[in-house]
């Protein structure tokens, strides 16, 4: 943990919520994307991240600094999402995950959207455990050790999950290619 982060953490622990915001902000987008990939719904993901950040604020004293603050935060977000996934789902997962803004030109945008829908759909069909490791490792580029810390799984299990998740995803992507007109 850097000195700046340590100072912000100290200030946040003493009740400075602006310091907490500055501490969290660099990890906010990744936290949100993790929630979005897991829950598949933007509003639900936003709620989950909000609740997770609130839990993090209340539990700041429990963060001992053994890992990065962001890793600790992602773990709280992940647990919040897993809890929500265990609850009865009010509706089927929506297609909104592809509803994002693009900076590309229209042609690229269409291509990206098509690819996105296909990959996004395939990703959503995977079990949550596989979605988690693929998201954290391949999309968010987190080190595998951090993936293990976030999910609370042994390193070997994360690797196994990654291996199986890749196989499953490849199979789904190939199937979707075959089914395309």
């Amino acid at each position, binding site marked *: 943990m850097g000195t700046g982060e340590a100072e912000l953490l100290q200030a946040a622990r003493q009740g400075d919520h602006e310091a907490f915001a500055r501490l969290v902000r660099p990890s906010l987008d990744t936290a949100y994307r993790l929630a979005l990939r897991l829950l598949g719904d933007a509003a639900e993901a936003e709620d989950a991240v909000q609740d997770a950040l609130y839990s993090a604020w209340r539990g700041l004293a429990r963060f001992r600094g053994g890992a990065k603050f962001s890793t600790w935060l992602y773990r709280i977000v992940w647990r919040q999402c897993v809890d929500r996934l265990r609850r009865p789902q009010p509706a089927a997962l929506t297609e909104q995950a592809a509803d994002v803004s693009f900076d590309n030109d229209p042609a690229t945008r269409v291509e990206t959207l098509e690819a996105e829908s296909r990959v996004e759909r395939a990703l959503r069909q995977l079990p949550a455990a596989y979605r988690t490791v693929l998201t954290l490792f391949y999309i968010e580029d987190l080190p*595998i050790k951090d993936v293990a810390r976030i999910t609370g799984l042994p390193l070997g299990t994360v690797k196994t999950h990654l291996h199986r998740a890749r196989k499953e*995803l*490849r199979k789904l992507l190939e199937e979707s290619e075959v089914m395309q007109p």
Partner: protein
Amino acid sequence: MTRHGAKRRTWLCRLAERTGALIEDRGDGARGLWQGLLQRHAAHCAYCRAELEEAVWIRRELQTLARPRAPEGLMESVVARIAAEQAPQPSALERAGWRAAAAVGLLFLALGIGGAVAVWAAVDSVSLSPGELVMEAQALADEVLSAMYAAAHDVGLAGQMGLALAWGLAGCAVAAALRSA
């Protein structure tokens, strides 16, 4: 696809498969000493090369996904929630509003009247000179009102107002009782 020799996997292939994530690890320290060995092995083993290529392909596919940012205002709403939690909470009496304040006032009024009745009874049963009567009544009223004040100490502004009202009414009652005596 030809494999190293045949389709048969060697112990290195199995190791590479089990540690699939390590092959395309990004130098996060998790791959350890095996990486060089696995890389050299993969260079001439079709099976492992295919595994590696699959990992690269999956990464490329997943990287096509959009990377939505956290919604605007998400952090601010969390900070607002935290700040609301930290703000001084209104007392139960203040939350309950004027009805509770009136109830407390009536309670103190009843206590005041009770004190006055007690004074009346004391005056009625003890034969004292008018000057002594006044002294005794004042002492008794002081005790009753002190007890009332102690009980009302933590009830906030509304409680204090009720207490003042009760004091006044109790005083009037005591004065009226003494005057009639």
